[in-house]
């Protein structure tokens, strides 16, 4: 599935078997839930961690890619003669190179392009690639290639692209078909409403910009390909690479140990990786590519821009009677989807809902899933609308939301949620924030005005259930965990090791994690979509429990007692009945004879007839300077129901990180295309594309885990966290700005420029 689908898959509740008896989520835990530092922290803070960009192999060449400088052009002619003869240049690929004549797929849409497509549909489209013996020689060679382009008319804006006669990005026009989904009868719903509001909300195209730019190293050994890749999912890259090269999966090894962030932009195989592998094959040498920062702005994905018309009807008692969303978005030059509708359909109780969504092609870089694809956009619209509705019917925004908390998923035939912590998120969050007091006392007058806002959210995908973990217990009582998942920074390795420590009583320092290597680890889905802990920790637990069971059986035999008489703590077996004995694992003969115990855990299917999803509510206090239009976020409280909190530190870090990203989305980040003249991106660098710095995050920052003790979702009681953390943030800020100024900012991000213009308009028109 693509994460952009409007309606998340109608996953029929589990066709598999129910969870095995005896493996209910933990009650009290010893290791899980503590503030355990990351198990690989030493490597990370000492510079010893080796990322793909740090890999250096003997004889390795460096690749660089020549990219189309125009938003829309045909490659007419290319002259490689000068570049070919430059010192150190070993290979050049273009669309005319037979080995590089490969189709390129976008999702399930069939081959829509080529590896080097002479019809370039966005600035940054691949035109040629060079391998040379140093990075700067590769770049110099690119500069020496002359290309004659036929520049074509282009279109950079959604509205322009939809107009009659707009330059078509693809044959057949720019406008995709409208995808509609409806339940109930919205006409009836609006007729029943006491208040109906309608507003158009817009969000800008946001870029992932992970810290490590996209990078791959490829090496061939005969017909066996090894690729080190900065990726969120080694198995996904392996599978697609195998298809491109016509190799069996077993001949493609993908390794992704340390990776410097992805946020969705590294969820799929990139052209740069295929190109690198081709160059390595052609030169019979290892080849490395590290994209430049500028390239990461142009051609490795983004969060699409959306224009969302939202109409909502509400009764005076706070019942939402109808919601109608019309969304038009653009995922760029190729199909990537730009759907946003989920929250409108599932976050609040409402019988009558209609969502209509259209994706439009423009001449700009193609979207990729970005942290909670579609959700922050929809929250921007829905949560501001909720705020406006509450004020129209004279209800507190928290109360209004509380009135509409669902206990079941309306997108899945009203199947109940395992737990809905939304209510607790709202009430606990409001309490910790001091919502009522702030609402009553905050200063909304003068030059520097303060205001408070709330927004809620949920994530709409339960995640994959295909994951296998292997736990090995050595005779000396140390353990090895083998999982396929990438640790994209969230602390996956640490959290999984904690699960093993919990079950086996082996101290964390004695557990090593082997991960993200298709040749040596078992399958795990890509780390994304908030599924990593949810998909993998139950498998890890089962593997650990299998080892534990086997170990206790052996110990019982050896110590001549029953399993029920034994416990496993701190790396030792203890007898619970007299004579009291403590046998360290390394003294256990039966273990020593076997050298190793191995447990394999397969993740169970989702529970039958129940939907496990995470919820959130966030509260912001802002200060608006009405003279400069600048907004400062002074206080932020985030309350999250993500099921069990596995590690206080990873939890806090995810939430604070998600909020920072939401602050960027809401207040400073946007791709700016020079629509009027060149169609090029004018802020393809971190100087002009502004992500938050340490100065921009709120000084007062609290996060709360609202753990509803979900005993049904899976055997670790976990729900996702990574995406929910960033979903409501921007809307909470916008609502706080409204509270401070009376201005509803419908366009994200809220830049000082925009706010100042709105404030000036307000001064003229009088404060509403």
């Amino acid at each position: 599935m693509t994460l952009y689908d409007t309606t998340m898959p109608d996953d029929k509740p589990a066709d598999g078997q129910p969870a095995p008896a005896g493996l209910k989520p933990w009650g009290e835990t010893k290791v899980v839930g503590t503030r355990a530092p990351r198990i690989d922290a030493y490597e990370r803070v000492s510079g010893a961690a080796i990322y793909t960009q740090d890999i250096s192999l003997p004889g390795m060449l460096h690749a660089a890619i020549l990219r189309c400088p125009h938003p829309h052009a045909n490659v007419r002619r290319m002259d490689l003669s000068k570049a070919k003869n430059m010192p150190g240049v070993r290979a050049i690929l273009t669309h005319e190179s037979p080995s590089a004549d490969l189709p390129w797929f976008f999702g399930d849409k069939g081959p829509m392009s080529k590896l080097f497509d002479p019809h370039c549909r966005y600035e940054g489209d691949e035109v040629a690639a060079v391998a040379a013996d140093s990075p700067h020689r590769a770049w110099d060679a690119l500069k020496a290639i002359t290309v004659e382009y036929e520049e074509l008319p282009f279109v950079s804006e959604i509205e322009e692209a939809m107009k009659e006669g707009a330059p078509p990005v693809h044959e057949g026009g720019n406008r995709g078909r409208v995808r509609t989904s409806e339940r109930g009868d919205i006409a009836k719903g609006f007729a029943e409403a006491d208040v109906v509001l309608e507003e158009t909300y817009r969000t800008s195209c946001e870029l992932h910009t992970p810290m490590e730019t996209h990078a791959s190293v490829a090496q061939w050994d005969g017909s066996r390909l090894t690729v080190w890749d900065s990726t969120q999912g080694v198995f996904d890259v392996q599978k697609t690479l195998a298809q491109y090269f016509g190799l069996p999966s077993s001949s493609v090894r993908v390794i992704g140990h340390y990776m410097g962030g992805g946020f969705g932009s590294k969820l799929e195989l990139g052209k740069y990786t295929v190109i690198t592998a081709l160059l390595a094959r052609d030169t019979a040498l290892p080849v490395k590519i590290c994209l430049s920062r500028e390239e990461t702005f142009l051609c490795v994905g983004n969060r699409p821009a959306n224009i969302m018309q939202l109409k909502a009807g509400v009764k005076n008692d706070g019942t939402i009677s109808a919601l109608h969303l019309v969304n038009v978005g653009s995922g760029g030059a190729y199909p990537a989807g730009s759907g946003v509708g989920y929250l409108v359909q599932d976050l609040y109780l409402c019988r009558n809902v209609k969502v209509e969504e259209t994706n439009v092609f423009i001449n700009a870089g193609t979207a990729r899933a970005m942290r909670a694809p579609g959700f922050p956009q929809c929250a921007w619209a829905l949560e501001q609308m909720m705020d406006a509705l509450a004020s129209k019917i004279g209800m507190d925004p928290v109360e209004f939301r509380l009135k509409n908390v669902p206990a079941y998923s309306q997108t899945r035939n009203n199947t109940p949620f395992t737990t809905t912590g939304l209510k607790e998120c709202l009430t606990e969050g409001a309490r910790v924030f001091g919502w009522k007091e702030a609402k009553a006392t905050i200063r909304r007058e003068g030059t520097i005005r303060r205001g408070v806002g709330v927004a809620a959210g949920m994530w709409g995908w339960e995640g994959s259930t295909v994951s296998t973990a292997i736990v090995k217990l050595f005779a000396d009582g140390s353990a090895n965990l083998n999982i396929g998942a990438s640790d994209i920074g969230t602390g996956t390795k640490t959290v999984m090791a904690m699960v093993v420590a919990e079950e086996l009583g082996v101290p964390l320092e004695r557990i090593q994690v082997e991960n993200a290597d298709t040749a040596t680890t078992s399958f795990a889905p890509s780390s994304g979509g908030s599924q990593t802990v949810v998909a993998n920790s139950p498998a890890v637990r089962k593997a650990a429990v299998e080892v534990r069971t086997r170990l206790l059986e052996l110990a019982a035999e050896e110590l001549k007692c029953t399993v029920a008489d034994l416990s496993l703590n701190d790396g030792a077996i203890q007898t619970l009945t007299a004579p009291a004995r403590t046998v360290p694992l390394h003294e256990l003969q039966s273990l020593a004879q076997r050298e190793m115990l191995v447990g394999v855990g397969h993740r169970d299917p989702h529970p039958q007839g129940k939907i496990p999803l995470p919820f959130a509510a966030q509260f912001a206090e802002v200060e608006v300077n009405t003279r400069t239009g600048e907004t400062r976020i002074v206080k932020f409280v985030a309350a999250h129901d993500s099921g069990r909190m596995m590690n206080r530190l990873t939890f806090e870090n995810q939430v604070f990180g998600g909020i920072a990203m939401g602050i960027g989305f809401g207040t400073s980040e946007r791709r700016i295309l020079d629509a009027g003249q060149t169609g090029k991106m004018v802020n393809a660098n971190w100087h002009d594309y502004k992500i938050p710095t340490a100065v921009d995050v709120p000084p007062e920052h609290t996060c709360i885990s609202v753990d509803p003790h979900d005993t049904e979702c899976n055997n670790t009681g976990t729900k996702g966290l990574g995406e929910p953390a960033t979903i409501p943030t921007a809307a909470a800020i916008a609502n706080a700005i409204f509270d401070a100024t009376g201005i509803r900012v419908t366009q994200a991000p809220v830049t000082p420029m925009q706010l100042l213009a709105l404030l000036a308009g307000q001064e003229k028109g009088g404060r509403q």
Partner: protein
Amino acid sequence: MQSTVLFVLDGQLVRLGFSPGGYPHVTTTLLQYLRSLPGHRGVKEGCAEGDCGACTVVLAEPDGDGGLRYRAVDSCLFFLPMIHGKQVITVENLRDPSGNLHGVQQAMVDEFGSQCGFCTPGVVMSLFALHKTLSAPKREQVVDAIAGNLCRCTGYRSIIDAGLGAVGSGAGDQFHADAGRIHDLLLSIPRDGLMIETGGRRYSRPSTIEEALDARRREPDAVVLCGATDTALRVTKNHEEIPSIIDLSGIAALRAQRRTDAAFFFGAAVTIQEVMDTAEKGIPSLAGMLAVFGSRQIRNIATIGGNVGTASPIGDTLPVLVALGAEIELTGSHGVRRLPVEEMLTGYRRTACRSDELITGVSIPRIPSDITVRAYKVSRRADLDISTVSAAFRVRVDGDGTVDGAILAFGGMAEKVRRARSTEEFLQGRPWTRETVDKAMAGLSDEFRPLCDVRGSASFRAAVARNLLLKFWAETAGANGQRAVASAEGVHG
């Protein structure tokens, strides 16, 4: 003149020669060089243009008092010959010989200050430099130290906590123990000039102003640089070849500051951070502006001479230098001349500095206590940013409440930093009241035709310019028009 660059790395003296066709080149950056070594791949490249701090390393130099001064810099903007005479410390050097983590590293572990970890080596080095300078930094100081380190994962909270938690970690570390030896090693490096010629490219790093002027005479087309933060981008970003460079960062005289009863004098190669440190004790309007200049890693390299030399319309020091009545010292083969900043700026990135001259310093007169000067900067992000609009205002209000002498200087409003002369004239002799300011604001709009670009539209810039004036008035006059604030103070708009 010698052609070998000498510096300390991994505690040892390194002699680096350059050969035609070999590696490294004179415009190889410190980052590229370090990453080409097997033991320093912990230093990361996030952008190669000074925006992210992933490449942060710490440079140590004798502080003149027998000790060492540590500063964090972006190694991606540092040409190799510029490390001559310095100790380079990277994240790999922080562990002690038995592998124990440094206090700032341990704090990062304890607070979970690292997620994907790609920003972490840079963050650690920024915190290291901070803790080598301050024993118990406050939150604002920690934030300032890491404001130039972008992190896309953590939201900074855990990093700030680590910075606060590492109290005292700089005092008794291995660097402290080894400081005497390093100090002497650095002093043993000859201070005379460098002249490196390889494959038709020339890099000279004179040690005196005279040598520099000679070089300039010989090669009028050579690129002159002080801190290279602007120049390095031409190489790292545009992959330009610069055939000849004259690097002034090795001239002790240009790194000197002087203070008299009448004025402050800063040599052209004094870094923005050093200017800021001095300004905090006497030129608050300038200090306030510099506090939001780039990031600490940039301020530690960028120079005041370079900021004037670049003559950018959004150069941060320029409006406030204009308002303060500063003069630029130009030295040529025919002697020294001084120009008011306004006359120095002749157009978009153009100055009155002739091709046989060098900017050698900036002189800033002390301001009488009855004059108020304030500077403002508005941008889309608080730090690591150059202004969209900046302004510096100076006003003296007579005992009777009327304006006697006003300077209104704006950046980002025209092709160069400019004064609003007509509005200044309008203010002269008028009461310093809201009414006057309202009229002045209306007049301001006619004085400028600002640009529209990524950083801000023309109407936004115009509105901000007007509002900054209003803000200045509000801060310097009470509601009834009485002057409320006597001291000059720098604020971030």
